[in-house]
């Protein structure tokens, strides 16, 4: 245990800094992309069809935050930086963006045309996938609080395993949305699959840190 390299171990100072950065700060920080989007909208930067830009940007931010949420555990294992405690806020804000994404679709895109909404949700593969992903995320969001952790006990971990299928299906939703292959979607899916693969390895702290 006596670490000879103690003098160059940056884990401790970083964790000291991290301790000062409360998870609650991220409830503000992670809303900055939304603020940026609103500012861009007001300044005309979203172009001729702002609705579509907003819809996509919200989906994108939501999925990226979901991926970051997934990444926090392996990064923590590899570095010993204590990032686990940020998982909840990342996950919840991700869900917030995805919910806004869905509401944009419902209200501004489909404009509450229910017959078409039902057809889309049942017959259009990329929308079906989006819905499945969203539905999988709902119980995660609802149980992301201390009360649920206590109440659900071991069951809580099983519920929160849903983040993996939700992320994969969200990535597939992205990939199938357009007429041609989406390179960004492929990259996103690869990252998701990589992070999931990491789950099956026992990760150790990288020595040089």
């Amino acid at each position, binding site marked *: 245990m006596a670490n000879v390299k103690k003098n160059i171990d940056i884990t401790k100072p970083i964790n000291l800094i991290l301790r000062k950065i409360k998870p609650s700060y991220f409830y503000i920080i992670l809303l900055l992309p939304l603020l940026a989007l609103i500012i861009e909208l007001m300044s005309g930067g979203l172009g001729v069809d702002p609705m579509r830009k907003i819809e996509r940007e919200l989906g994108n931010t939501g999925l990226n935050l979901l991926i970051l949420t997934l990444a926090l555990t392996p990064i923590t294992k590899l570095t010993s930086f204590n990032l686990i405690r940020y998982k909840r806020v990342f996950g919840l804000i991700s869900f917030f963006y995805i919910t806004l994404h869905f509401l944009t679709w419902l209200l501004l895109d489909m404009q509450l045309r229910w017959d078409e909404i039902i057809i889309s949700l049942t017959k259009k593969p*990329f929308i079906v996938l989006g819905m499945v992903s969203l539905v999988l995320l709902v119980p995660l969001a609802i149980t992301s609080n201390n009360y649920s952790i206590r109440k659900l006990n071991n069951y809580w971990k099983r519920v929160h395993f849903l983040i993996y299928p939700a992320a994969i299906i969200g990535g597939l939703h992205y990939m199938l949305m357009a007429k041609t292959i989406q390179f960004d979607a492929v990259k996103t899916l690869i990252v998701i699959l990589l992070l999931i693969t990491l789950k099956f390895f026992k990760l150790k702290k990288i020595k040089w840190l």
Partner: protein
Amino acid sequence: MDIKNDKIKEAFTPKHIYVNRRKILQLGMALSSLVALNKITPAQADESLERKINTFEEITNYNNFYEFGIDKTDPAKYAHKLTTSPWQVEIAGLVENPGKYDLNELLDGINTVDRTYRLRCVEGWSMLIPWNGIQLNHLLEKVGIKKEAKYVAFETLLRPEEMHMQKTQVMYWPYREGLRLDEAMHPLTILATGLYNQPLPKQNGAPFRLVVPWKYGFKSIKSIVKISLTEDQPISSWSMQNPREYGFYSNVNPNVHHPRWSQASERYIGGEGEGYLGNLFTRRYDTKLFNGYDEVAYLYEGMDLSKYY
């Protein structure tokens, strides 16, 4: 034929709109300032559908032209690289006068037309666009149609140095489209050389492009370099890409479902309010069979449109 022609013109280019816009445009020209032209917001209504004509800015900043990028704003960014003059067009196949023509020579002597058409994209959005151009049938008559001809095939320019996406495999290049001869000869089918009485902007398919208003937008091929008359049904790029989603006919049809987009309705780009912020609240309209251009229905009499989609 000509009586029908005039009727069509009247029905789809409400005269008062044209008269008004002409006046405004002339004024704009007189000021000879592009800025002034850009600022024209035609608030005149397309009475049949209560839509206003899209602004020049909207029409030129929201394009599907994959040769310049997949995003709708890419063509406006990159199409300036395209050299459109000189422009040669090859007329080939079952025609009396095949050969390579300079575009001006090819269009010389053909009556120009102004048409304000609805454009319905397969992705579920639409616009209302004031085109200038010629009727395709006039051009085909000029080059002479041989009796055996049954279809018309079109090809877009292949020039990867100027159209950078042609260096990638997102589609099979060059972009190809086709029509049945009777569709091509229909007076509604035009070759556009301009919009808003300006030369066609590059992102909209300069120097000339097809416009078939009753079909999904991708049929209206841009920056054409080859037109051939054929006996067999030509291939079209999107059908090659995905035959189940994009058929040869691709007539606008709310009853033929598409796996990605709802075809029952369309979002009209060009919102309720003014400017970009106004465009946030776009409106959905019910999509009509043949995009509302019922006069083409006879072309498909007896055909099962859900089979020949």
